[in-house]
């Protein structure tokens, strides 16, 4: 009997050495890339879960079947990301990749006081309404949009399981710190942090526990055990290690422990450079975090540090997939596989595979374990 993807995933979570290569899970991360490889337009995969599913099936025929897959189709991922976006077929050509745009949603640090008064859930709902195109004017619209997301998710998660694949997460969120950074925009948020981090820290400490409880409810409702956490703003690309230790880590650590107590793995989508931050993940319970690296963090150093403690995924770089050769991808994967045989490692791309990746390079990732 061939091994199932779920068996491989569980094996990885056990953090014990792999006896053979076939035990290691593989996750070439794609979302919009399915459209490009599967020959379905970006407009279609952003507007219809069915079209996206069609593109996934076509892509699998070409590059082979991954063990793990993004379970939410692009139209909803864009909505959940919490940034204003340009959409193919709306503001962009039909076959362009959707784009997030970062522009300041508020430009007065007084807004932090307002958040403390209003409470995070009310403020965040208002923020989500305001960044839609066109903006939502009635809270009912937001409720309806979440309802639609629920219906779509039922379909896409059902599809993922029916194919024997494992969803990357069963529920997803961005920490309050990261949402604030995106809403205020990078430069101003950084200045606020340097000038007076007090109100920001107050917001995080006061409201992150409640936000986590809500996410736990969402994951449980989905009968799941993994939460995807999109936290790129907490990396050393954006803040200093000192700020991480003082401001981000105490709150993140409590979140990890809260999810762990609820039986949920914290799947940290760690885009950008987290190298100086990795040591902190030895402080939380063994196996409580799964870290997805994008090629910017030193993966070998991280693996040495966390081996036997937390699992990691990574990290064939986007540039290699677009411009490199099959041999280069193979060699890169081989190095990662050799490194990861001591357990707790998932072979994958660094974040999402770019739209101009060569199909044969993507196939080479899957083939390096299954070929």
């Amino acid at each position, binding site marked *: 009997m061939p091994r199932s993807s779920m068996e491989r995933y569980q094996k990885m979570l056990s953090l014990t050495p792999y006896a053979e290569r076939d035990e290691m899970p593989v996750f070439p991360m794609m979302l919009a890339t399915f459209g490009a490889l599967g020959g379905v337009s970006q407009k279609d995969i952003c507007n219809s879960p069915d079209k996206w599913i069609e593109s996934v099936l076509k892509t699998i025929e070409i590059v082979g079947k991954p063990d793990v897959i993004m379970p939410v189709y692009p139209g909803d991922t864009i909505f959940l990301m919490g940034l204003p976006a340009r959409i193919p077929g709306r503001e962009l050509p039909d076959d362009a*990749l959707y784009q997030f745009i970062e522009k300041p949603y508020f430009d007065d640090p007084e807004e932090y006081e307002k958040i403390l008064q209003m409470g995070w859930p009310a403020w965040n709902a208002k923020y989500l309404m305001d960044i839609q195109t066109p903006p939502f004017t009635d809270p009912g619209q937001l409720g309806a949009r979440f309802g639609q997301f629920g219906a779509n998710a039922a379909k896409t998660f059902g599809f993922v399981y029916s194919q024997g694949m494992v969803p990357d997460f069963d529920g997803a969120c961005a920490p309050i710190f990261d949402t604030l950074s995106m809403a205020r925009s990078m430069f101003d948020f950084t200045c606020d942090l340097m000038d007076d981090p007090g109100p920001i820290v107050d917001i995080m400490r006061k409201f992150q526990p409640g936000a986590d409880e809500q996410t736990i409810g969402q994951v449980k409702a989905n009968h799941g055990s993994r939460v995807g956490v999109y936290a790129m703003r907490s990396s050393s690309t954006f803040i200093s290690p000192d700020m991480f230790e003082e401001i981000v880590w105490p709150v993140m650590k409590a979140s990890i422990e809260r999810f762990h107590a609820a039986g949920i793995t914290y799947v940290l989508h760690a885009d950008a450079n987290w190298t100086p931050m990795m040591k902190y993940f030895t402080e939380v319970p063994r196996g409580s975090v799964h870290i997805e690296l994008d090629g910017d963090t030193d993966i070998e150093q991280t693996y040495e540090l966390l081996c036997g403690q937390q699992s990691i995924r990574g990290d064939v770089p986007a540039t290699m997939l677009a411009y490199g050769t099959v041999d280069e991808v193979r060699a890169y994967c081989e190095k990662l596989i050799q490194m990861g045989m001591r357990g707790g490692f998932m072979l994958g791309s660094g974040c999402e595979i*770019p739209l101009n990746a060569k199909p044969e390079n993507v196939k080479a990732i899957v083939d390096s374990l299954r070929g």
Partner: protein
Amino acid sequence: MSTMDEIAAAVEKGKAKLIKDLVPKAIEEGCSAQEILNDGLLRGMNVVGDRFTRNEAFVPEVLVAARAMNKGTELIKPLLLAEGNQPLGKACLGTVQGDLHDIGKNIVKLMVESKNIEVIDLGVDVPPEKFVETVINEKCDLVLCSALLTTTMPMMGKTVDALKEAGVRDQVTVMVGGAPITQAFCDEVGADVYTEDAAACANRAEEILKAKRSA
């Protein structure tokens, strides 16, 4: 500590409010705007830039240092003009067409400006023609292109080609950068210089312009 040392230290620590008091104090003491710029503001910024290159300082430190430096240059701008301060040269900078990432580009701008080089910031999503037009109209010495996406990297090659077509390729040094860019890619598209980070970019830009001046 002299006022000039205090200015450099305030920039280094990102204390824009201190700069507001220190710069007028230095002027009162009879320092020239040129001195305040070079021995105070830019010196402080260069320290941060070097620490950034050595991975000892991070983006937030660079941003607040630059904010303090800019506060200071704003205060001495009229004096600098009156003294006839000549920037080392002129650069146009932008994120290439199709790409909206600008955090790295903005840091490049701050660092290059900290070498007393004038930077015309064309923003994001900049088509090749816009670079060409700016080079011609503004007589730029440097073209600085940033790209963060594998799908937009080829626009750097298109920009080099457009400069050639317009007959101005030889007048400018084309520098390229951004996380996915490599030296090999720089060579392949016919650009002149690649550096990994913004501080190195500023150092190279300074070298190139100094060499051009003494030539």
